């Protein structure tokens, strides 16, 4: 079956990057907010903020290290800087600046990485952030958020501005289905139960959430009731929801658009291992870089599909 990334049986919605840009512009009258851009504002959609609040928008050019350092200084002077670029250039290029100038002094800098994962498609692996969650989670004190759809990306943007502390918000390039019919269910730091079930739990974030819901429909036809948790906040992770799911269901699948190492799977595994060991299976990119192609071709090739989640759930429930 061909993957239809924009719908998956759900209403179509905007990309998470566009929803971030809309939300940022919406709350932009807050004079504390200052945006620094790595000359990709028409890709990250910080141009929507720029159009309204040009005096608080700075294009640092193609210089992510300086961009992050400027954000650190702005935060130390009481501003709420939002530094946005392609996630791989932000997190990989400027990692030392993020570590030394932001994380170590625990400054209130908001890093927003867009074009994350392999679903950017044709631009290919040099542009694909697939290590960014591991990098962000490795930083002491960081909050790390991976929203699933437009509404939750908007809610996450507003929540991260309200919450003091360094934050990484990861957004994607393609339009994605809407998984939140009621955005009041979204709370930073708390997993959202998008579907209840007591046979198996699917923990997902980003574009994998819509796929998890799709997989749950398939499993239902087989008589398996799957619980779907949107674990948008990878750090600090919602320990209670994971522990409850480990107790109340017979196993857990963790699905993410990221390498196998250092992301959501690793984070959930630590909680499970310590609190309530249970059978687990993982859906992720594995240990490889991708290629160019359409988002659907790449997601299929690298095993990020509803079918991959369904198969993983079946493995978990076997014997």
């Amino acid at each position, binding site marked *: 079956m061909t993957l239809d990334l924009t719908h998956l049986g759900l209403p179509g919605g905007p990309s998470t990057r566009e929803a971030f840009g809309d939300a940022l512009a919406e709350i932009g009258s807050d004079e504390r907010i200052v945006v620094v851009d790595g000359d990709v504002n028409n890709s990250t959609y910080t141009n929507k903020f720029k159009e309204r609040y040009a005096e608080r928008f700075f294009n640092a050019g193609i210089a992510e*290290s300086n961009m*992050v350092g400027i954000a*650190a200084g*702005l935060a*130390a002077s*009481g501003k709420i800087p939002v530094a946005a670029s392609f996630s791989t250039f932000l997190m990989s290029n400027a990692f030392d600046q993020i570590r*030394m100038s932001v994380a*170590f002094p625990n400054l209130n800098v908001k890093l927003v990485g867009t074009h994350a994962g392999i679903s950017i498609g044709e631009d290919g692996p040099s542009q694909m952030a697939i290590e960014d969650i591991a990098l962000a989670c490795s930083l002491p004190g960081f909050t790390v958020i991976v929203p699933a759809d437009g509404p939750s990306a908007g809610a996450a943007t507003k929540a991260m501005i309200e919450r003091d502390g360094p934050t990484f918000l990861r957004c994607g390039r393609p339009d994605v289905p809407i998984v939140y019919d009621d955005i009041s269910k979204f709370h930073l730091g708390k997993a959202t139960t998008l579907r209840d079930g007591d046979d198996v739990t699917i923990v997902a974030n980003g574009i994998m959430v819509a796929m998890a819901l799709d997989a749950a429909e398939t499993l239902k036809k087989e008589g398996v009731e799957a619980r779907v948790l949107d674990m948008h906040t990878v750090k600090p992770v919602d320990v209670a929801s994971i522990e409850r799911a480990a107790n109340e269901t017979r196993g857990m699948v963790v699905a993410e658009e990221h390498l196998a190492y250092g992301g959501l799977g690793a984070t959930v595994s630590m909680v499970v291992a310590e609190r309530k060991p249970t059978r687990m299976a993982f859906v992720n990119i594995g240990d490889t870089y991708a290629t160019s192609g359409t988002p659907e071709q790449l997601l299929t090739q690298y095993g990020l599909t509803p079918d991959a989640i369904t198969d993983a759930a079946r493995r978990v429930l076997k014997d």
Partner: protein
Amino acid sequence: MTKALDRSGLERVARQIRRDIVQSTTEAKSGHPSSSLSMVELLVTLYFGGILRYDPQNPHDPDRDIFILSKGHAAPGLYSVLAEAGYFPREDLMTLRKFGSPLEGHPNMCRLPGVEASTGSLGQGLSIGIGHALAARLDGRDSRTYVLCGDGESEEGQFWEAVMFAGNHNLDNLTLIHDHNGYQQTAAVDEIQPLDPMPSKLQAFKWQAREIDGHSLDQVAETFEWARNVTGAPQAIVARTIKGKGVSLLEEAPWKWHGKPIPKDEEAKALAEIGAGS
């Protein structure tokens, strides 16, 4: 509060800072005295010559000026100046680098009042300073930001990203103090990545730049005065200095002494060369 000592007062404080640098690093048995000694007149003039506006009783006053030590390994010099300024008791200097002390090997802004940026990974201070300068400009605050960078750390790409940005944004509330002591860890800067001509490089990036003798209290004071009167451009003070200034053992072979304290049995001689402090 701005301290403004007369010439003899500044000379006396400079000797005291040098003594503190030598004694604290010798006590710690590690640290970077030679990198600290080259910037003494620059910091003493900034903090005690009526230039920097600061208040140790209100270290987060939004109207204060900001000083960032980008070459964080020169922390013993910064700590000695902050103690002299009254941010913490002078006795604390002898806890340098010891477990439990906020006087860590490199500056930690979360632990020590008066430290405006956590530094130690080189090349990052000027970008942070730009953030402060932009914030002051946005707020309409009359706050100036001073960033001291070493010549060796100017090999970092981020330094030049920041130089380009500050020049293009006409950040006239930002002053770079370039401590051009000529040596980095293993050899002379000229043997590794020659930087000269530094002033004209900075001018090409739309900065106003002056080159001075960084140990002449008169030249340093005059140049700080010049810098704060420049409008429309960031200013750079390229200060020719001597690594290890004031201690012959270090001055004579700076390539041997980077990151090394003066041995205990050489300390008395070094202090005698420096002379009496306050």
